[in-house]
């Protein structure tokens, strides 16, 4: 492990800030409309090429739509879809995790079996079929992603809850006659917040990639919305003649996910020393060697599935 710096990392920080600002002020920033093109000005290459035009810095696509403007507006879609999907999945997962961890017993056994099953599904495959069959739309993309994502939250939050439950202040609250709901709200939830923040950040990148994949395959955000995945798919037929249509939205996506992932790694290292060992992406990457660390008998294999799910994320 390299030495951990305590300053906020400037590179991902700057990119994320730029991204959020771009998404917010998109209408003022974009030189053209993202959806209306001028067909007489189609397939113009970027400015630094011979036929380039200052009017369209990153060129235009086959309908004459400005690639730069579409990328700028596309940031809204990527951010909105991933944030809403993660919010829904995070809320559901956290709720399940809290109840499961705090209650124990039958509820715990039932909810955790459900979580195990959720974690074991081939996410991309199921997502493709779910959205395809239910007509591509923003709502469906978000719902499907959220539905497939919540178990990741549930498992980690449950683990965290189990640990916090054993603390003295919880026991005191019980003795003082506080209700379970009160204890969960006032004692457990605030203490799982750091973990929740880390998981959330680590999932944002994955969700952006998943949304991009679905849109690319034609079962995600419907056209003519300027989703990055859709733009990349648009340029597929023009790779030989108009490479810029696919190249730039992909770069935007790569930078965004890269920044989010680096930020997630940094947060994990700072907010949650435990996750460094057994959770998050570190678990995935340094899997089998760290698998046994800090896990009781019978728990380690769950990690195999976590690795499975995460490795698939990349495809």
């Amino acid at each position: 492990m390299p030495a951990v710096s305590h300053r906020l990392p400037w590179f991902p920080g700057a990119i994320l800030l730029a991204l959020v600002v771009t998404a917010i002020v998109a209408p003022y920033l974009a030189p053209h409309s993202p959806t209306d093109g001028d067909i007489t000005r189609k397939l113009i290459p970027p400015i630094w090429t011979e036929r380039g035009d200052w009017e369209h810095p990153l060129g235009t696509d086959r309908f004459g739509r400005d690639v730069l403007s579409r990328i700028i507006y596309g940031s809204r879609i990527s951010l909105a879809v991933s944030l809403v999907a993660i919010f829904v999945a995070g809320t559901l997962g956290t709720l399940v995790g809290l109840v499961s961890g705090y209650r124990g017993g039958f509820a715990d056994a039932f909810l955790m079996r459900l979580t195990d099953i959720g974690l074991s599904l081939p996410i991309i495959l199921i997502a493709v079929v779910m959205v395809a069959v239910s007509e591509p739309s923003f709502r469906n993309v978000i719902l499907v992603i959220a539905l497939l994502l919540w178990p990741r939250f549930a498992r980690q939050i449950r683990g965290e809850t189990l640990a916090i439950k054993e603390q003295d202040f919880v026991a005191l609250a019980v003795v003082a006659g506080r209700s379970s709901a009160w204890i969960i709200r006032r004692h457990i939830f605030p203490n799982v917040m750091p973990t929740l923040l880390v998981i959330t950040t680590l999932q944002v990148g994955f969700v952006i990639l998943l949304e991009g994949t679905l849109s690319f395959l034609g079962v995600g955000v419907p056209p003519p919305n300027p989703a990055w995945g859709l733009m990349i798919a648009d340029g597929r037929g023009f790779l030989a003649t108009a490479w810029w249509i696919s190249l730039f939205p992909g770069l935007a996506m790569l930078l965004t996910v890269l920044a989010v992932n680096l930020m997630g790694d940094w947060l994990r290292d700072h907010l949650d020393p435990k996750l460094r060992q057994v959770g998050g992406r570190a678990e995935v990457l340094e899997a089998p060697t760290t698998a046994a660390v800090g896990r009781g008998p019978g728990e380690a294999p769950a990690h195999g599935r976590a690795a499975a799910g995460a490795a698939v994320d990349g495809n």
Partner: protein
Amino acid sequence: MARYLIGRLAQTLLSMLVVVSIVFVLTRLSGNPVLLLLDVNATQRDQEILTHHLGLDKPLPVQYVIYVANIVVGDFGNSIISRRPVVEHIWERVPATVELGFVAMFLSVLIGVPLGMYSAVRRGGMMDSGARVFAVLGQSMPAFWLGLMLILFFGVVLGVLPAGGRGTVWHLILPAFTLGYFTSAAILRLTRSAMLEVLGSDYIKFARLKGLHEQVVLWKHGLRNALLPVVTFAVLLFVQFLGGAVVTETVFAWPGLGRLILESITTRDYPIVQAGVLVLSALYLTGNLCVDLLYSYLNPKIRHAGR
């Protein structure tokens, strides 16, 4: 151990049942297949006959039971478009998917293991930082975009590799790399950490004290001991490639199962979609099960639990 084994087996079966149910619900939600099958001029009577023939006039729970029972005996029905048994369509495509997955696994081990070893040996050096960048990029890059850029560079600009389709060994390189990049990054990190652990051990120090050649120490004493987790992981990867095949196969026009599923979604040939998803999911779940069992067998903590 036995208890764990049975529990894990039951869970896999349950997961499979969930997949089966999801697919059932989705295909029933997706509109009336009768209208898809018949042309516009079909009469009311035609519709009724076909509905009855397909068993769609029965209550939903009954349909579900029939559906599951058919799957258990391996009967997936006929394709709506070609009228041939779905099983035939699936079998035609399985070899291509398995081939691609196998080569991708091989490639990611081939890239990941040596790079990981080197960054462990030269810890903190140029190679190590390079490998880190390689790994981080691999996690952040959309696979479909990487595939297109590879086609652009090697297929269009350089013109040295075919842009798609299946045939020669050359056709395999780009899709296998696209599929294997992310995982080679994972293998790299894994090899690195395993290797670092092994290199710090006493027997490596002893081998060096004995005056063995450094290469012998690294490859024979070091790698051999570090390789176990890597190999287990590689098996797991192969399975995941099957699940992730949809994207890569689409980009490279690779005639595998994933592409079949996507094509069938476009043509609304739902029997094929159902069967394809079930087969891929079954492969995926079985693979995960095998790896879990292997892990638990290799990990004494679990092997002896419950004795």
